[in-house]
């Protein structure tokens, strides 16, 4: 299946019984990297990201039959990935029986545990700074900063007003700057 096919063609292929598999594979291949990085920025570890991403894609397979094109496929996929990631974090929190602030420290520790971690490099300090933020702010910052998502699309995804998202993003950027300068 051609990766450059538009979402409408991929969805049409999925809804055709004979080309269902090909349509699904086309959707996976087109969006897998974006979804992977969206999840990994939140979870840090590749293994956790892989688990959650597979769960997301299984849910996509099961739910795509009922997908209505009143929202974009891209937004719909991101919403599932975001929900699954936040659910995973909640489970991790319950499992570790720690508070929200301590949880941030745990994910900060995961950043430091990465085999390529180098605290002298700015890109690694940036990751530590992002992990020090509350989860919702992390999401907003990542979607805007890395995925360059428009506020309008982010609003659909997170069910939050564009103004609130803009304020959240600015606030996050300021905190990250302070974190890195004081590190």
């Amino acid at each position, binding site marked *: 299946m051609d990766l450059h096919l538009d979402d409408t063609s991929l969805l049409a292929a999925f809804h055709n019984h004979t080309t269902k598999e090909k349509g699904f594979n086309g959707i996976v291949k087109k969006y897998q990297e974006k979804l992977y990085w969206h999840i990994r920025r939140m979870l840090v570890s590749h293994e956790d990201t892989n688990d959650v991403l597979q769960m997301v894609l299984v849910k996509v397979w099961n739910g795509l039959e009922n997908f209505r094109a009143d929202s974009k496929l891209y937004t719909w996929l991101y919403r599932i990935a975001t929900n699954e990631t936040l659910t995973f974090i909640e489970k991790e929190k319950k499992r570790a029986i720690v508070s929200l602030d301590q949880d941030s420290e745990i994910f900060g520790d995961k950043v430091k545990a990465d085999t*390529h971690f180098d605290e002298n490099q700015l890109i690694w300090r940036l990751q530590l700074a992002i992990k020090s933020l509350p989860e919702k702010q992390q999401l907003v910052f990542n979607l805007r900063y890395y995925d360059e998502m428009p506020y309008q699309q982010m609003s659909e995804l997170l069910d939050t007003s564009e103004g609130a998202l803009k304020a959240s993003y600015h606030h996050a950027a300021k905190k990250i700057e302070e974190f890195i300068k004081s590190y």
Partner: protein
Amino acid sequence: MHQNKTIHEELETLSPFWTTIQSQMPYVVPAHYFETLPSMVRAKIETEAVYDELELIAPLLNTIPKQTGYQIPVAQEKVPPVTTTVKMFTWSKIAVAAALIGIMVLGNYFYTSEKQTFDYSAYIGADHTQIIETISDSTLTAYLDVHEKLIVTPDVSDQELLEYIQSSN
């Protein structure tokens, strides 16, 4: 660096600090991960389908681990070649010994069976006069004519012989 100029400018308005930062992710993804992901997802979908199907039919089975109690036997140790040679040598020794024993037994059998067929007692107890009577005179005369010259007699006179015969009777 951001492709989207709007986002880049937005951050620059917040602080010149952001011009020094690159939006590059430092994390590494395992090699060929994205090539294998679709097949991994397909396998997971099948696994979940099997689970969901069984959940409707017989949910108890989903609680039992899918492990069989069967075990594959541990591979037997290979017999060293030296042991094999020794075994063959032993077998050949046994075969040779058996052949020798066989020859001895058969030899003994044939040897003893020949002896048994020769009836010495019958020979000793036979009445020679009867046997001679069955032979014709002409045969005996012919035999004596041939063998008479072979009979070696000591240097004794006929008179001495008659006297010897008379005295021994």
